[in-house]
């Protein structure tokens, strides 16, 4: 069953369809999501991986340990995730693009370094391959429990974050390049929020032949002069600071002046926050990536991201086949949250891999009438096509999701 057979319009808003048209020479492989995340990073110029093995992100570490020395890069297996992300931040400050990869238990440990990298505007990429929790949960099962944690990846507030989520092995490759580009342009860490299914599954993957020839990769530049921190400005494309070039740059955990000196004044706090929030908020148009199917004439729209967006999409087509004018929104950019995708006043059915309801709360906030937003939470396993179709049919015909085993519908 395809969108073509059903006769609905499919739209993908992201930079990589254009990239794929430009980079046509390459190899077609059958590979895992972790492989695609690794190769995407290498293609984007990543030369340092520092991290700590954890299921289901371990394979990224293993692939990196093999690939990085081949391209003159460095693999560091750290004592813990605290060290992993701090070492990445150090490498990036030294001028090398860096990435780490983990799962929920490691991601929470990284928040120490995450906030440091946000404040100091250090570009790097963090992969979080989510599994079901809380805590260790079921290590080999997918979850989507870090939707909010990824947004609030540090304490203290006063920042925005960029979080992207792929839903196929091929997309994981392109999206990783995109994540590195955004990290450079926005001078901030970018999280790739993926899950156990996307990381572990094998799919066909096109990999370009010559990474050096990819003209859409944003190269690392160095900021060699003041201001090191353009506080009070929302400018994009400010080159990242570099340690070791004798610029006298100062990097710290404190609220800083434009030189990087620690300061305890309201004005400085305001100027720093203006920068950290507005460099992202003022450029949301350059950050929003998503996919839609059949939203134009929809009477009900299913919303999902990551692995379960795959079965949810097929569920939408099945609902169409049953005569329900169902639409589909797949978020790729999770944060900053694309409110504008939920501007139409119609029922939204949010399918996500947790029972507590996370993404659904943002859709409720964004939609004109939050009461029309329905929740279909599932945990440790993807939604089935039948469940999604039944949910959409129920909402379209009776205004509610029918009772289904292991589907959680209560949010409040």
């Amino acid at each position: 069953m395809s969108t073509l057979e059903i006769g609905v319009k499919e739209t993908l808003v992201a930079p990589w369809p254009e990239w794929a048209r430009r980079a046509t020479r390459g190899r077609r492989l059958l590979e895992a999501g972790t492989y695609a995340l690794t190769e995407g990073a290498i293609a984007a110029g990543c030369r340092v991986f520092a991290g700590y093995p954890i299921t289901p992100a371990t394979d990224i570490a293993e692939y990196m340990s093999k690939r990085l020395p081949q391209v003159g890069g460095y693999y560091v297996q750290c004592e813990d995730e605290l060290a992993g992300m701090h070492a990445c931040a150090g490498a990036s400050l030294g001028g090398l693009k860096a990435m780490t990869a983990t799962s929920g238990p490691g991601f929470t440990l990284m928040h120490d370094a995450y906030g440091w990298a946000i404040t100091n505007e250090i570009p790097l990429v963090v992969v979080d391959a989510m599994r079901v929790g809380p805590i260790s949960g079921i290590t080999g099962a997918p979850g989507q429990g870090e939707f909010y944690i990824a947004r609030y990846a540090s304490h203290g507030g006063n920042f925005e974050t960029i979080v992207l989520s792929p839903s196929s092995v091929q997309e994981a490759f392109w999206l990783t390049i995109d994540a590195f580009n955004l990290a450079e342009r926005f001078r901030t860490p970018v999280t790739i929020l993926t899950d156990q299914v996307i990381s572990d599954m094998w799919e066909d993957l096109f990999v370009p032949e010559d990474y050096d020839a990819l003209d859409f990769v944003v190269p690392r530049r160095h900021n060699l002069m003041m201001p090191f921190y353009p506080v009070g400005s929302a400018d994009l494309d400010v080159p990242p600071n570099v340690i070791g070039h004798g610029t006298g740059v100062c990097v710290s955990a404190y609220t800083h002046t434009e030189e990087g000196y620690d300061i305890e004044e309201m004005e400085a706090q305001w100027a720093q926050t203006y920068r950290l929030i507005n460099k992202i908020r003022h450029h949301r148009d350059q950050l929003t990536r998503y996919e839609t199917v059949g939203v134009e004439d929809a009477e009900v729209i299913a919303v999902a991201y990551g692995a379960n967006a795959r079965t949810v999409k097929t569920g939408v087509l099945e609902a169409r086949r049953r005569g329900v004018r169902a639409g589909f929104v797949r978020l790729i950019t999770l944060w900053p949250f694309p409110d504008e995708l939920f501007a139409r006043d119609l029922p939204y059915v949010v399918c996500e891999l947790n029972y507590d309801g996370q993404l659904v709360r943002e859709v409720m906030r964004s939609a004109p009438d939050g009461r029309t937003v329905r929740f279909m939470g599932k945990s440790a396993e993807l939604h089935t096509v039948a469940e999604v179709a039944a949910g959409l049919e129920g909402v379209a015909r009776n205004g509610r999701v029918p009772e289904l085993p292991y589907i959680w519908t209560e949010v409040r």
Partner: protein
Amino acid sequence: MNKLAKKYLRPSQIPTKACHGCGIGMIENWLLQAIDEMGLKQDDVIFGTGIGCVGRQTFATWGGDNFGATHGRALAVATGLKLAQPDKKYLIVVGDGDAASIGTSHLIHAARRNLGVTVICEDNMGYESTGGQFSPTTPAGYVTNSSPYGMVEPGFDPCDVVKAAGATFVAETTATQWHQTVKIVKKALANDGFSFVHVRFPCNENFGAYALGTRDTLKNLEWIYEHTQGRKADGTETDFTWETGIKHDASNSRPEFSKVLRDMNARVRADLAARAGT
């Protein structure tokens, strides 16, 4: 401003906000003397620190490039930075909290890897910037604001730990030993590998006031000096003794961490090229 401060520090960032009589500034001056005697320039040295008295008072004083990591993580940051900037000298100036408590795992593993950095652990024997609680280097039995009945835990010697972990240079000194400290720091910086220098100094406001009963800088320095000698001014024995001096010197005896990785990369790439050629 003295000659060395003028040469190496940032006029706008000194004097620091350190309390009256604090040893941090004095020790930093000795570090500058060692750097100067070695003929190093501002651009040759990257200055890294952490959180607490030592982090807050030394951050951004160095005229060259500076970083102040989150609490305990200066060595984790330096591990990545060293890969990108292997030719620099790294002076990682941290406190007992950073080195001997919250960041000990990074300290141990940096020593194990023989990461090419010099750690100066400036130890005021407690958490003084939070008001004087005990730390793992507070002598057992001493009174602090979180050990009102005496510290019940045994103390902790970071020199033993880093030596056991594989550090190639380990030394202990105090704020009462100027020339010895300068000599030790020069040796530490000359080691292309992991060097650890433990420097005890007095906190007058908290440790001095609560554990020793005085805010008098000279009396607190004297208390430290007596414990390096094992004998008080009146001739009686001290309750314990700190052995100062070089504890372990295996400088340049094994390859530095980033060099090990670079050498491996060269080997891997040579193999790849050879295979592509055949």
